[in-house]
């Protein structure tokens, strides 16, 4: 919107122009992508309805592998949801300057990933029409859900995380949305009036007074403090879905920290994967540059090392415990029918991220993009390997079996990616994708300004 853009008199004006200017008026490629995503979603919706109609037999799950790709996807997407809050809350509390340009997109990613993850526990229910039995509400059956079941803990953990993430994201947005509202005031036309109304309502009457800024800062800090423990709790609770079961290969005290590290690992990878096309499409190369990939690469490397350590520890504990069934489960995980996924998992999650030890590679956006895609694949397979290989090879050898996903499961999996990307693309065009407030703050404080790659750091 050329008419919106003020002449770039100062770096501050440039920031507003660049970020607000990236909104609206997408070109045809955007529309083609949205239509393609909706088409995939439609196909996945058809597969889902088919599954509801004929029964869970439409999926490939069987006896003994009663959880398959759906739960894999659930854990995968919850994991993706982790980096957002880590980057925005924990790095905020740690005063890490490099978070300012990626936190908004990472938080949006968190919210959309939770929205995707939340679908899977429902999709995988045998009798989806009774999904509300899982919710604690007063009812004529005089029944509460079973508070001993980790699935109920999940219900609370995920809904809490979603609520806090949404509020945190929204409070960060308020000054930026108000800036868009003010831009709209200067424009004529019915569309501008409508946008002014919508953004005005979202801005909650923000005027930018000293008093408002003071309260805003305080609120944001508290929200960050509230959100921080959730980064640790949510995936711990998800890991307990497995660790609380007695299944060999699941029943392990290492699961909570192991899953949290894995979640942050996969979340950072997804931020890298998404931000590369995103900065290019919105013309924000100055805002997210080598400096940011360098730092994200370090975080990726750290979490990869933790995950690799956890893999080794799991095997050590299985061997050291002297529990023949536990050891057999782990032996079979690496050498049995699911050796292929296991090898993919190990190479993608442990070996490839080691490349991040080199500064040159961390500072190469292309290399980071490729590495992050491998990590995404590897982390999906990690969940698959943990869930499927443990169930396929349990206590009773007579009941051992194998699992292969069906077309319904694969369609719905593909659909989950379409669903997630659809929301993300919508977000990129209706809300400021980078925090205007925080970028301006860092310019004012002289910490960092757009285009600065911090080559010397």
């Amino acid at each position: 919107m050329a008419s919106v853009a003020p002449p770039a008199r100062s770096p501050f004006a440039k920031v507003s122009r660049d970020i607000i200017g990236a909104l609206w008026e997408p070109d045809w490629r955007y529309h083609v992508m949205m239509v393609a995503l909706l088409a995939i979603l439609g196909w996945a919706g058809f597969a889902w309805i088919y599954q509801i109609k004929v029964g869970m037999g439409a999926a490939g799950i069987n006896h003994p592998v009663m959880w398959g790709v759906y739960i894999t996807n659930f854990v995968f997407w919850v994991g993706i949801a982790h980096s957002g809050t880590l980057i925005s809350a924990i790095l905020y509390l740690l005063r890490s300057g490099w978070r300012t340009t990626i936190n908004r997109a990472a938080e949006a990613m968190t919210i959309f990933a939770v929205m995707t993850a939340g679908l899977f526990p429902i999709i995988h229910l045998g009798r989806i029409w009774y999904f509300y039995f899982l919710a604690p509400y007063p009812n004529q059956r005089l029944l509460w859900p079973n508070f001993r079941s980790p699935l109920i803990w999940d219900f609370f953990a995920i809904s809490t995380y979603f609520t806090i993430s949404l509020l945190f994201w929204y409070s960060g947005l308020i000054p930026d949305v108000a800036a868009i509202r003010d831009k709209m005031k200067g424009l004529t036309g019915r569309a501008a009036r409508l946008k002014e109304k919508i953004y005005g309502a979202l801005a909650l009457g923000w005027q930018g007074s000293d008093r408002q800024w003071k309260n805003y800062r305080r609120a944001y800090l508290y929200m960050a403090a509230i959100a921080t423990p959730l980064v640790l709790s949510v995936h711990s609770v998800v890991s307990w879905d497995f660790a609380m079961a007695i299944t060999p290969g699941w029943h392990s005290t290492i699961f909570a920290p192991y899953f949290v590290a894995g979640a942050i690992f996969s979340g950072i990878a997804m931020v890298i994967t998404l931000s590369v096309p995103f900065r290019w499409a919105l013309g924000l190369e100055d805002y997210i540059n080598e400096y940011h990939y360098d730092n994200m690469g370090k975080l990726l490397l750290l979490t990869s090392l933790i995950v690799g350590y956890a893999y080794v520890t799991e095997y050590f504990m299985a061997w050291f415990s002297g529990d023949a069934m536990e050891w057999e489960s782990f032996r079979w995980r690496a050498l049995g029918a699911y050796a292929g996924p296991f090898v993919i998992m190990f190479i993608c999650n442990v070996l490839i991220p080691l490349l991040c030890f080199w500064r040159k590679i961390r500072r190469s956006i292309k290399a980071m993009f490729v590495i992050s895609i491998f990590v995404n694949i590897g982390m999906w397979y990690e969940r698959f390997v943990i869930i499927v290989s443990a169930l396929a090879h349990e206590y009773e050898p007579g009941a051992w079996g194998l699992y292969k996903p069906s077309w319904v499961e694969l369609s719905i999996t593909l659909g989950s990616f379409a669903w997630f990307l659809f929301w993300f693309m919508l977000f990129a065009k209706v809300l400021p994708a980078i925090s205007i407030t925080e970028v301006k703050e860092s310019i004012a404080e002289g910490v960092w300004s757009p285009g600065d790659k911090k080559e010397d750091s």
Partner: protein
Amino acid sequence: MGLAATGRRVELVSLQGSHDDHDREIAEVISLDVAAEAEEHAREEMELHPEALVHASEDADPKSPYRWGMAVDLSSCTGCSACVTACYAENNIPVVGEEFCSQGREMAWLRIGTYYEHAIEEGANGHGDTHGDDPGSDSFHVVHLPMMCQQCGNAPCEPVCPVYATYHNPEGLNVQIYNRCVGTRYCSNNCPYKARRFEWFDYEFPFPLNLQLNPDVTVREKGVMEKCTFCVQRVAAAKNTAAYEYRAVVDGEVTPACAQTCPAEAIVFGNLRDPNSRVSQWAKSGRSYHVLGELNTRPAITYLKEVARGTEET
């Protein structure tokens, strides 16, 4: 008459993952000498600690006169599978056919596991590398193990259900409430015996099968978990009759379909709280063991080890 290759390839459907119990003491064999010693020892133990032997009877409401239990004598079991058929007929279990069975979707609540047990003579010295995978060996032994819901006293399936669809009833049974089940299948993942079955589809009972449906047993909807109930409908009927006559259910009054059908009388059912019941007597045997008992699931089913020739215990 001659044989000619048709060129067709047919996948053979096996209902069992492994015929080797991997030294997990799932299917147990005992030699005759050791069995005799064990019986003697058990008898002495009984005299010293009569209260200690039937642990499973504890896992019911203290006020309940009953803790239903079962005992299966592997020595008597020939693996004929009459019990499996009887269970299908009694409990309205859908017969799903070859294709679904090959996908791991057999619905049998009771299955017969066949384990090739290692040679008794080798058992004493060999661990791990003498699995009974040598059918040519002279000392090769086959054990048939009827496996169904163990109605555990400390059941792993119960705490994980988010909607209390599986719960422990006052008589010690793990009761599955079909109307409450939403089908998370967590219970099955947490069942070490893999005794639970899931309704993958809405199954049909085409004529004339519909005429033999048991009116005392619900036909389950798709998306619901189910399993062996110890023929709870027969238990309920016996309790009703007994209540009309102002008495307790007596031993032998309840017989599940599997026990009723077994030609070798390898299965007995009864009240573990009655020390004189047949099931209690069997459970006190020197040959008795619980499958995967080390998991502390406290099963209500006691298995009696198969007696085989040889001199050592495996």
